[in-house]
């Protein structure tokens, strides 16, 4: 079975004084059809993990294995790796080129990875657009990024990631820039594509609720360390580590309406 495995990943960034260990000994295995969520706050190292897997950063130590073999870091081997592992970025307003049409964004990966060529390219583009619910495909193919909403752009970004026929998708906060009412649509879309394609997904997020419902396993990162990991329901419903508990307590919970005011009042009454 194909797997994407990271072993003892470490990343140090050089600072003016000394260094910062952004990621400290992170290991996990991504399998087809499985989603792993990495949650944590800004600066926890979760995006650095994603960037190392996408080969946008080089690990200081540790290895990344695709199907058990160390991944190619240059040339044809790297192209082959990118064929298998693709990334969806956080900001759909920045990740599409404003000068090019949607069709161009999807044609490039199709051609580069040899998925389609010649007359087969345009139908392949349309098929991709249909798969991400951007229909009629001919209309969307001709659009420029600025003619679309954030949710539509993110769908294009997802289609682009699928274009090479990737088996693993690294999604770095794929919905945090989108309006709330379309977030679930995009996540549901990703989940459907995952089922259809049997994709392995690494879902990087700070949103614990979607992490729980969208993933099989959750890794909680804090300052570079994985402080807790396990099946998603276990981590969210029965957190063991102090930091996970803090994170959970801080997440808004509408069922607690009014309670914060009572707490604050009690606190002030106790202090006076």
């Amino acid at each position, binding site marked *: 079975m194909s797997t994407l495995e990271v072993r003892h990943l470490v990343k140090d960034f050089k600072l003016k004084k000394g260094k910062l260990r952004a990621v400290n000994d992170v290991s996990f295995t991504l399998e087809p059809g499985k989603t792993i969520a990495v949650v944590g*706050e800004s600066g926890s190292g979760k995006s650095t993990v994603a960037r190392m897997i996408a080969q946008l950063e080089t690990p200081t130590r540790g290895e990344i294995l695709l199907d058990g073999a160390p991944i190619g870091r240059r040339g044809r081997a790297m192209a082959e790796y990118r064929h298998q592992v693709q990334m969806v970025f956080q900001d759909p307003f920045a990740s599409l080129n404003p000068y090019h049409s949607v069709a161009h964004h999807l044609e490039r990966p199709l051609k580069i990875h040899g998925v389609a060529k010649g007359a087969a390219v345009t139908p392949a583009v349309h098929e991709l657009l249909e798969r991400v*619910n951007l229909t009629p495909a001919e209309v969307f193919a001709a659009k420029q990024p600025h003619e679309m909403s954030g949710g539509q752009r993110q769908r294009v970004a997802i289609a682009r990631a699928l274009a090479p026929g990737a088996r693993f998708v690294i999604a770095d906060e794929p919905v945090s820039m989108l309006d709330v*009412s379309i977030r679930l*649509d995009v996540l549901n879309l990703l989940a459907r594509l995952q*089922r259809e394609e049997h994709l392995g997904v690494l879902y990087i997020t700070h949103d614990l609720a979607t992490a729980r*419902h969208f993933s099989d396993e959750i890794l909680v990162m804090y300052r570079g360390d994985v402080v807790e990991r396990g099946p998603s329901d276990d981590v969210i419903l029965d957190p063991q580590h102090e930091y996970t508990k803090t994170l959970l307590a801080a997440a808004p919970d*509408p069922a607690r*309406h009014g309670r*914060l005011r009572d707490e*604050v009042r009690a606190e002030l009454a106790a202090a006076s």
Partner: protein
Amino acid sequence: MTVTSTPTAPLTSPAHDEYLAGLEPVLTARDVSIEYEVTPPVHAVKHASLTLHRGEILGLAGESGCGKTTLAYGLNRLLKPPAILRTGDVTFHDADGSDIDVVGLTGDSLRAFRWDKVSMVFQGAMNSLNPVISVRSQLHDVMTTHRPQMTKSEREDRAAELLRLVGVDPVRLDSFAHELSGGMRQRVMIAMAMALNPQVMIMDEPTTALDVVVQRGILREIMRLRERFNFAVVFITHDLPMLLEISDRIAVMRAGEIVEIDTAESIYLRAQHPYTKKLLSSFPSLTGERGSFVRGDARPTGAEGEES
């Protein structure tokens, strides 16, 4: 009554009227319509009416582009062209019993009103501090403008006191914006908004860019300060679960209209408008059921729901 007769009055409930009984209004907006004079004109706010009461937190929820920030700017007279207030009036009921017609204010009277009576914590407040002057100068600036009679040492004392109120060490007075973390910058912005003891604070997405743990700290701080100083807050955000937790009442806006206004409890338990229900279901519950979220073999109930 909060809801005046607008073309389509927002949905509400008896519990809401009950809640309002005996509350003292501090800011009343009636039939406010705001337009952006571009071609074609954009009707950003359509006949919105709401009343804010002393000491309450009123949540204003809705998605990007629904007009919530525009409405807030209208309440505070911060609209600038091409935005224009087409109809409606905004009345501020001062603590001393006098009423101020906010729409009619001009020049010095407007300058004296803003920040003193109604202050604002802006969207992206993280980047609203002046990067080239210290926190001290920025806090002093507010006071020299609005309280020219204060002596330098009084201003200094007040600046330190304000920082302590929002939970920032007064040694930070010498800091510049880039030396502070996001959460601290946000706290400084809140301190600045509180500098003149306003009766109303408008907070536009004050915690959106912050991490949940930091956000929680700031929300607590706002709640605590509200208890102590009894100012009213208009809290604008798209994060409905957060609003439900902190607000007394919530107004839901869509496409420039307030479609539903009710107590937080009623919105959570008995939302009436389909759009409010949709917003509520957009947030999967952390500990409960998965709502409209679909994964694996679960049957679809959500919008995406076209399964193979």
